[in-house]
C-alpha cells in the first residue's frame, strides 16, 4: 500500500520537475480532442493554510495514527478551481518534504495517517496538486504518536456494559438475600397446566421433549427446570410422563429431575424410569423416533421446550395431526414461526428463560432476567431521548454512541 503511494508521489514529483516542452507536448495531444480554449496550466495552485497535526487521541490506536487538518487551497472549488487532490508528506527531519503517506481528494480538509511508528517525531507537509504541478507545501510538526492505554472511542460500550453488569449483579445479590423479585406469570405456564389436565382427563400420557441441545446449552438447562415443574403436576395427577432425549447426558439429567419431582410430590413409586428415553443423537432419527411415540402411544399433550433446529417442523406437524394439545417454547428465533402456527401456545424466545426463572426462583436466573429488563428500559429511554434530541437538533448525544 505504501509502495502504491510512493509511485504516485514519484510520478507527481516527475510531473513538477519535467521541463515545460514535454508538458506542452502532452497538452498538444489533448488539443486534438479538446477545444483550444483550455490553456495549458503551468501555474501551481495556491497552497493550503493553517495546517495542524496532532496525535489521534480520540481513537483506539497504539500510537500509529496522526491526524492532520488544514484549510483548503483557495483554488479548490473556487479561484482557479483546478485542485485535484492534496498530497500528504512525512519526514523525520524538519524542512524536508520526505515520503508520501497518502492522498486526500479535492474538497477534503483532513487526513489520517495510520502508518506512523509510535514515539517517533514527524514533520508533515501538505501540497495542493492540480494534475501537473504541486503548490508549495504547508508544513507542521513535530508530532508524535502516543501509545494509548484506553480506547476513548469505545467509552460508550464500556459505560453501557458496566451499567448492565451492575444491574445484573445487584439483582442477583438482592435475590440471594431473599428479596421478593416480581416476575410476571408467563401465560404459557397456564397453557402447560391445562394441557396436562386434559391429558389426565383423557387418560393419556404427556410427552415432554427437552430439545436436542447439549446439557450446557442454556435452553436445555431452562427446559429441565420447567420439566421439574411439569413432572410435579403429572405426579400429582398420576399421568404418565414420557421424556425422549437426543443426548445421553441430558437423559441422565432428566432422570434425576423427574425422579426428584415425583418424590417431592409424594408419589415416588409412580416414577417410571422407562419413560425417560434416549433415542438418537442424529437429528432426523430422533425426530422420526419421537413421531413414532406420538403415533403409537398417543400422548394427549405434547410439550416442546428447549433448543430446537429443523426438527421443530417435523415434531409439531405430526403432533398436530395426532390431535394433541401442543405447547412449545424456544429461543431459536428461526424455529419460532413453525411452533407458533402449529402449536396451541408458544413461549417466545426469552419467555423460556423467564418461565424457568419464575418457577425455580433461582437467584442467578432472576438476577439476569431483572438486569436485562432494566437494561431494556435504559435502551428504550436512550432511543426516545435520541429521537427527541435529534428533533431539537442536538447531535452530540448521537455522536457519543458512534463507536469504532
Amino acid at each position, binding site marked *: 500500500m505504501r509502495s502504491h503511494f510512493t509511485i504516485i508521489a514519484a510520478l507527481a514529483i516527475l510531473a513538477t520537475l519535467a521541463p515545460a516542452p514535454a508538458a506542452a507536448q502532452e497538452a498538444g495531444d489533448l488539443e486534438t480532442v479538446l477545444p483550444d480554449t483550455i490553456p495549458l496550466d503551468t501555474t501551481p495552485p495556491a497552497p493550503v493554510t493553517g495546517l495542524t497535526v496532532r496525535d489521534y487521541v480520540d481513537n483506539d490506536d497504539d500510537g500509529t495514527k496522526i491526524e492532520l487538518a488544514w484549510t483548503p487551497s483557495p483554488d479548490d472549488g473556487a479561484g482557479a478551481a483546478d485542485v485535484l487532490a492534496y498530497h500528504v508528506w512525512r519526514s523525520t527531519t524538519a524542512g524536508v518534504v520526505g515520503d508520501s503517506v497518502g492522498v486526500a481528494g479535492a474538497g477534503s480538509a483532513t487526513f489520517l495517517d495510520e502508518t506512523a511508528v509510535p514515539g517517533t517525531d514527524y514533520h508533515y507537509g501538505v501540497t495542493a496538486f492540480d494534475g501537473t504541478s504541486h503548490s508549495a507545501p504547508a508544513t507542521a510538526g513535530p508530532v508524535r504518536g502516543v501509545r494509548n492505554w484506553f480506547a476513548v472511542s469505545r467509552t460508550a460500550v464500556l459505560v453501557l456494559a458496566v451499567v448492565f453488569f451492575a444491574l445484573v449483579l445487584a439483582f442477583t445479590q438482592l435475590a440471594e438475600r431473599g428479596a421478593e423479585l416480581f*416476575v410476571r406469570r408467563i401465560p404459557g405456564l397456564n397453557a402447560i397446566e391445562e394441557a396436562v389436565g386434559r391429558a389426565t382427563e383423557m387418560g393419556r400420557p404427556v410427552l415432554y421433549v427437552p430439545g436436542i441441545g447439549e446439557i450446557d446449552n442454556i435452553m436445555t438447562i431452562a427446559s429441565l427446570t420447567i420439566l421439574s415443574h411439569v413432572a410435579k403436576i403429572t405426579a400429582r395427577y398420576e399421568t404418565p410422563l414420557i421424556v425422549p432425549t437426543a443426548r445421553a447426558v441430558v437423559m441422565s439429567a432428566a432422570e434425576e429431575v423427574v425422579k426428584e419431582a415425583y418424590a417431592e410430590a409424594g408419589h415416588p413409586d409412580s416414577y417410571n424410569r422407562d419413560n425417560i428415553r434416549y433415542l438418537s443423537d442424529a437429528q432426523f432419527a430422533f425426530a422420526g423416533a419421537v413421531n413414532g411415540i406420538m403415533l403409537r402411544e398417543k400422548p394427549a399433550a405434547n410439550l416442546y421446550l428447549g433448543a430446537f433446529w429443523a426438527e421443530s417442523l417435523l415434531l409439531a406437524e405430526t403432533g398436530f395431526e395426532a390431535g394433541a394439545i401442543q405447547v412449545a417454547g424456544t429461543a431459536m428465533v428461526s424455529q419460532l414461526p413453525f411452533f407458533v402456527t402449529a402449536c396451541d401456545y408458544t413461549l417466545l424466545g426469552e419467555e423460556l428463560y423467564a418461565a424457568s426463572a419464575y418457577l425455580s426462583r433461582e437467584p442467578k436466573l432472576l438476577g439476569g432476567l431483572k438486569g436485562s429488563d432494566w437494561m431494556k428500559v435504559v435502551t428504550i429511554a436512550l432511543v426516545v431521548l435520541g429521537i427527541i434530541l435529534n428533533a431539537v437538533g442536538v447531535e452530540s448525544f448521537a455522536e457519543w454512541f458512534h463507536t469504532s
Partner: protein
Amino acid sequence: MTTLLLATVGAILTLCVYSFLYKDNPFYKFAEHLVVGVSAGYYLVIYTFNFIVPNVTDPVFTLNLGGEAIRLGGLDWWMALAPGLLGLLLYTRFFPKIAWIGRWPLGIYVGGYAGLGISPVMQARVINQLRAGATPLAGTPDPFANMTNVCLGLVIFIAVTYLLLVKRQLGARNTGAKVGIVALAALVGYGGYVALSALSGAGVVNLTNVMLVVGLLGTLTYFFFSMRHTGVLGVLARIGIVFLMVGFGASFGYTVMSRISLLIGRVGFLIDWVGMFFS
C-alpha cells in the same frame, strides 16, 4: 467412467435418504450412520492437517513456523507447545480418576471466549441497533410512504369496522349512522395527521419511521418480565406481539425458499445423473 461411477454412488445414497419419506428403513439408517462416520473422519483429517500440523507439531518438532525456522526453547516454540499440552489435558476426561484436570484448559477456553464476546455483542447488538433505531420522525424522505399509509389505513379500517359491525359497541344500529361514524373517525385521523405534520415543523411526519420506533418499543416491552402488562405497557406489548408475528411470518415465508433450494439442488443432481446414461 469414473465420473459416472462416483455420481452413481452419490445418487444411490441420495435415494437411500429419500426412502425415509416412505418410512424409516434400513437403507436410510445405513446412509445416516455412514455420514456420521465419514464426516467425523473428514473433520479429523482437516483439523489435523490444517491446524494441528502447521500450528503445533511443525513448530514443536521440526522447528518450522510458516516456513520460518524457530529456535528450540525460544518464545515461539513455547507458544506452540504450551497450548498443545493444555489441549491434551482435555483428554483426561476419559480417565475418571484424573478427569478433573481437564477442567483447567476448559476454564481458560470457556472464560476466554466468554470475555471476547461481551463488548462486540454490546456494540453490534445493542449500541448500533439503538443508534439505528432512534430514527428521526420527521423531515426525512420516506421510500415506503405508500405502503405504510395503505397498511395503517387498512388497520384503522379493520378496527373501525370491527368495532361497528361486529361488536356494535357504539350502539349505532342503522347504516347511515355507521357511515357517519366511519367518516368522522377518518376525519379525526386525518386531522391528527395534519396536526402532527405541522407540529413536527420540518413538514410531513415520516410515518414509516414512527412505525419503526413504535414497533421497536413494543417488541422490547413485550419481553419485560418484571412488570405487569397493564395500561400503556399492555398496549405497547400488544403492539409488540403484532410486529413479532409479522416478523415471524416473514421468516416463515423466506424459510420455505431455503428448504426448496435444497430439494432443487438434489433433484438437479439426480437429473444430471440420469442424463449421464444417455450421453
